[in-house]
């Protein structure tokens, strides 16, 4: 037994390049899966620590359901026996003149020190003499701010530095440490009121409550009370769809990875059939041979898995940055730090690598047990009856596809069911690889013989002859290419849908500030109303709410302006709905409608500053602004229900054909500038949204790249095994009168043939996969309709990738054909 194993292992060493390729194949498969899983895990785990830092010792927060809270409420909170500590908070954003947005908290250092340590340590690092100076500046200098270390480092600030913002200058009196990583400024609450023009108001109070139930009872009407556990849950709920997406990507990575490992292991075994025959012929038992195979595959699996674990760890460091960036852009600030190195990464990699390897080697090993030594020794590498078997396998694939269909039908149960369906589909499609090769062979033969002559014809014949191996290679390559096409098509379709949506809903000529930006003072709105030539001003306000225990938001707009200038896309209702919105009804976004199962005519109850209010739904519109759902109402209704006059942004509309358009826009810009507010033209605004969109899909895109890399190694490994295994045949060809060039061309043709079949198959599978992503996965997790748009780009990109991979994969075999020709003989060694 030992000598059998030793001989097998010597083979590994002898075929160094092949072994390395196989090792890399396994390593990359493992790395993709481990990297993605680690990245999404660290992003989600850092959620808690991000919240913890600012939370300090508080247990609850109290705020108005929308907009700021009157500061007089604080005295009532102060007298409440269930409140141990309370601290007012103003939580806003400041735009630096450099364009950067920074979160700024207005705090009261006297009360805040009971719940948080930030203000308690003002000047602490500066030594005694400076402590008083810093504290007195903080209290008395209207522009004095504390700056967190991250921001200080990023902008090269220290105590004494000045910060220029659109809303006026600030100066740093102290730098504090901030483990959350979020750039942060702290200003005295009184100065914050002045700075943000919100005298008499705070955004919320952070509380330490001892008797939650009693407190909630006393503050039930007109206030939103949120415990910290709720807050964490809400944040997590905000990320729900995104989280799901990350999980899906990790699973896809795992799927591709396992497929690749399986593929590699299978080739490792198949390529050794002849050796197995020899051992059997010289008296080794089948068990010994199978054992030796297993040892070899395990060594590959363990080594590749371990390498993959390490690679995956480094990959996760890269991916976690992207994931954090996306969450920060879309939801709230999060700077996840990659999880520290743990030997579990290694263990997980080894487990994944060896388990997938063993699974991959099982079918050929089982086949090996039936092998007749004489048969393999005769040198025939192709197996008979494969075409029949391929049909059986295709039947199995059909069953998988049927299962996928059933799962899609049930996907309303849970998003995971949709995922399972997508996997079943990909798996099912992969079973058709052999069948497709058989079907495609005649056509391919004609094509290749026309282009490359006899060499091309023989090459395609070889693909057909070696079906057992080539079908696996095609399946793996095809899956990777399909993912690339599917993800690419989905992103392109989404992008197109987004452009359509922006063109229908964001038709203003100029936008002052944006939803996530600094607020617009009402004075500016009043002022702009007097500017002649402006057709309409939409006053936009968006506030997050909790509806039926889940996050959603309310958007208030000026219905008559939107009715006149916008062209909403309606699922239910139509432009006539605006009349009803003006009268006090609301319209809801598609995601709201799907998530909460409400439609035109439904009545929804929303917590307002006046207590619960019942509103009638007058329409459902397409929307990609928030996957959590939006309730849109006229500003007059909003003001009545929430008594919140905050304005997030203004949309300026000018009638078409107005001669003074440019002049009016200039005038509006001038006034916005005088208020220190940012603005953007329609094109700039749309461009910014598209930028955000693109950055959102950064993770998906990197997964696509990963899939392609994995595919490359898959196809390269498969091809090399095929060629190495059949090197002797090249000698035969040479003896038959083929030139070295012919043999090389044949090799290239075979590689290209495999690439072409894989690509053609992936074009179909990838398109269906895109449709699955759009119609099932996205609809289930984000609750919005994406319209499928055919774009050639994903196909071109993927086709070129397939071509490049095929050419690169055959480079080594061709080189080895040319180099080794003289020693390649027909004779047996």
């Amino acid at each position: 037994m030992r000598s059998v194993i030793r001989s097998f292992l010597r083979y590994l060493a002898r075929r160094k390049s092949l072994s390395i390729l196989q090792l890399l194949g396994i390593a990359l498969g493992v790395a993709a899966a481990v990297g993605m899983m680690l990245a999404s895990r660290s992003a989600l785990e850092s959620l808690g620590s991000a919240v913890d830092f600012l939370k300090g010792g508080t247990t609850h927060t109290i705020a108005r359901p929308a907009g700021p809270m009157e500061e007089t409420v604080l005295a009532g909170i102060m007298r409440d026996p269930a409140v141990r500590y309370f601290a007012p908070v103003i939580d806003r954003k400041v735009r630096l003149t450099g364009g950067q947005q920074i979160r700024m908290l207005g705090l009261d250092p006297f009360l805040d020190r009971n719940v948080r340590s930030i203000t308690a340590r003002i000047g602490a690092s500066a030594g005694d003499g400076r402590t008083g100076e810093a504290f007195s500046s903080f209290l008395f200098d209207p522009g004095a701010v504390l700056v967190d270390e991250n921001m200080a480092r990023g902008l090269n600030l220290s105590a004494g530095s000045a910060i220029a913002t659109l809303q006026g200058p600030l100066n740093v009196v102290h730098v504090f440490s901030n483990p959350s990583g979020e750039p942060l400024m702290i200003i005295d609450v009184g100065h914050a009121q002045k700075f943000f023009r919100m005298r008499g108001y705070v955004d919320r109070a952070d509380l330490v409550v001892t008797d939650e139930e009693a407190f909630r009872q006393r503050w039930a009407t007109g206030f939103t009370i949120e415990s910290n556990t709720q807050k964490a849950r809400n944040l997590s709920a905000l990320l729900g769809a995104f989280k799901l997406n990350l999980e899906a990507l990790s699973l896809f990575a795992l799927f591709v990875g396992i497929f690749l490992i399986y593929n590699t292991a299978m080739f490792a075994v198949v390529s050794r059939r002849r050796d197995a025959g020899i051992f059997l012929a010289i008296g080794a038992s089948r068990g010994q041979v199978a054992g030796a195979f297993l040892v070899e595959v395990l060594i590959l699996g363990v080594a590749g898995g371990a390498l993959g674990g390490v690679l995956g760890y480094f990959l996760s460091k890269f991916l976690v940055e992207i994931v954090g960036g996306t969450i920060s852009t879309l939801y709230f600030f999060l700077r996840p730090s990659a999880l520290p190195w743990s030997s579990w990464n290694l263990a997980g990699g080894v487990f994944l690598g060896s388990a997938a390897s063993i699974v991959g080697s099982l079918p050929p090993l089982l086949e090996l047990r039936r092998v007749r030594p004489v048969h393999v020794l005769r040198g025939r590498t192709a197996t008979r009856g494969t075409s029949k078997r391929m049909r059986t396998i295709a039947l199995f694939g059909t069953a998988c596809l049927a299962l996928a269909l059933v799962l899609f039908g049930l996907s309303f149960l849970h998003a995971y069911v949709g995922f399972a369906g997508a996997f079943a589909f990909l798996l099912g499609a992969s079973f058709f690889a052999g069948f497709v090769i058989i079907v495609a062979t005649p056509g391919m033969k004609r094509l290749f013989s026309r282009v490359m002559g006899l060499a091309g014809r023989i090459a395609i014949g070889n693909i057909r002859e070696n079906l057992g191996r080539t079908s696996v290679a095609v399946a793996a390559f095809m899956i990777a290419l399909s993912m690339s096409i599917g993800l690419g098509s989905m992103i392109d379709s989404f992008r197109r849908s987004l452009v359509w949506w922006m063109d229908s809903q964001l038709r203003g000529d100029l936008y002052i500030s944006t939803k996530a930006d600094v607020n617009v003072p009402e004075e500016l709105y009043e002022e702009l109303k007097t500017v002649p030539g402006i057709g309409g001003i939409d006053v936009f306000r968006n506030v997050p709410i909790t509806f039926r225990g889940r996050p959603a938001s309310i958007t208030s707009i000026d219905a008559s302006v939107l009715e006149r200038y916008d062209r909403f896309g309606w699922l239910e209702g139509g432009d006539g709905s605006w009349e009803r919105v003006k009268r006090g009804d609301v319209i809801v976004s598609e995601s709201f409608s799907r998530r909460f199962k409400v439609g035109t005519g439904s009545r929804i109850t929303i917590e307002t500053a006046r207590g619960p209010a019942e509103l009638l739904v007058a329409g459902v519109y397409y929307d990609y602004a928030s996957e959590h759902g939006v309730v849109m109402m006229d500003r007059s209704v909003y003001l009545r229900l929430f008594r919140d006059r905050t304005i997030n942004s203004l949309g300026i509309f000018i009638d078409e054909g107005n001669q003074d358009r440019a002049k009016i826009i200039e005038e509006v810009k001038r006034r916005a500038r005088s208020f220190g507010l940012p603005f953007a033209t329609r094109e700039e605004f749309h461009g910014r949204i598209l930028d955000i969109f693109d950055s959102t899909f950064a993770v998906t895109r990197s997964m696509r790249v990963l899939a392609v890399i994995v595919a490359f190694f898959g196809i390269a490994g498969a091809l090399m095994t095929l060629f190495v295994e059949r090197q002797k045949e090249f000698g035969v060809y040479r003896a038959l009168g083929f030139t070295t060039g012919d043999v090389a061309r044949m090799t290239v043709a075979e590689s290209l043939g495999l690439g072409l079949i894989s690509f053609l198959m992936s074009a179909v599978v990838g398109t269906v996969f895109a449709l699955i992503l759009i119609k099932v996965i996205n609809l289930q997790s984000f609750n919005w309709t994406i319209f499928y748009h055919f774009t050639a780009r994903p196909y071109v990109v993927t086709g070129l990738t397939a071509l490049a991979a095929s050419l690169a994969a055959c480079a080594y075999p061709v080189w080895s054909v040319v180099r080794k020709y003289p020693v390649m003989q027909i004779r047996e060694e």
Partner: protein
Amino acid sequence: MTTRPALLLRALAGLIVLVLLWSLFAGLPRDLFGQGWRQAEATRQWSFPRDHGSHPEYRTEWWYFTGNLADSEGKRYGYQLTFFRYGLALEAQDPSSSWSVRDVYLAHFAITDASRGGFHWRDRASRKGPGLAGAATGTMDIHVLNWSARMKDDGRITLKAAQDGMELDLNLTPAKPPVLHGRQGLSRKGPRPGQASHYYSFTDLTARGTLRVPGMKDPVAVKGTSWFDQEFGSNQLSQEQAGWDWFALHLSDGRDLMIYYLRRKDGTFERESSGTLVERDGTSRHLALGDIETEVLSHWKSAKTAGRYPAAWRIRVPAAAIDVTVRPLVADQELVTTASTGITYWEGAVDGRGTSGEKEVSAEGYVELTGYAGSLGGKF
């Protein structure tokens, strides 16, 4: 009386003293510097209840309640509820904003639970804000968040404070008229002009109400006697002072005795250290340093702060035939006010026995000891 100004400054040490120190050196902002505040230099025309209210023209001011209480089972308690006002600026920068700072209000709250040997305290600080803290002028109406002291029209005072299982709800009725300390209420703290404060007390208040300490399910009804001090000034302290010992004692024959010793760093007492004796009928007389003899009988060392405090005294006022020995009800009545101010001092309920006018008397009251833990002296 020196105790309180120094204690106040000490109480603000964490933040404000340093602001002051800095402003002394840097001269900015102007308002923080002592200039502009009214000095306690001459006797004033007292008028009550107006003078129970705040005197914002002076930089520092405090309202100081201490008392010895007992419930129906005879279990004994002590309490301290103190409010401080400290002026950071002569005028608020932006009077239209409630947050614009003129004064900082601080408060200390402590309950001694003699039967269980417990001592509980909390402290806090706030600016005026939208009704968060303040002291009215013209009448006694002070609050720091939800701790308050308010005098009603009939002259009775209501104290309310609650936090973390501690609760105090007392009605105080003056049994004697206000007592002016020093000369006409001008209490000298040192040799230099302006080193003084305006200082008066209700030395004998009948207290009734309820009290709760952590671990008690419901508040218990209590009654007893209380002592109230109010003092205000702007610049009383001398640099050489190390700390002070303050005694406020009720004798069972109806006499009340207040003594303060201002300890200098060189180990001697400040010459202005003195006291006041209040007779049963409310008449009072000033006691000079030489009129009082005090002997420390034992010490107690704090495990928390390593401060070593006197823990039993024999006090004699020969001219009044007073000779009493008092000891703390609970050894550890040390406050470490890290939550707001960072100062450490001992302030606790005491009791004892002795003679007054040749008659056997019992005594109870409060003692305050500062400058025993940490380096108080250098800073003032």
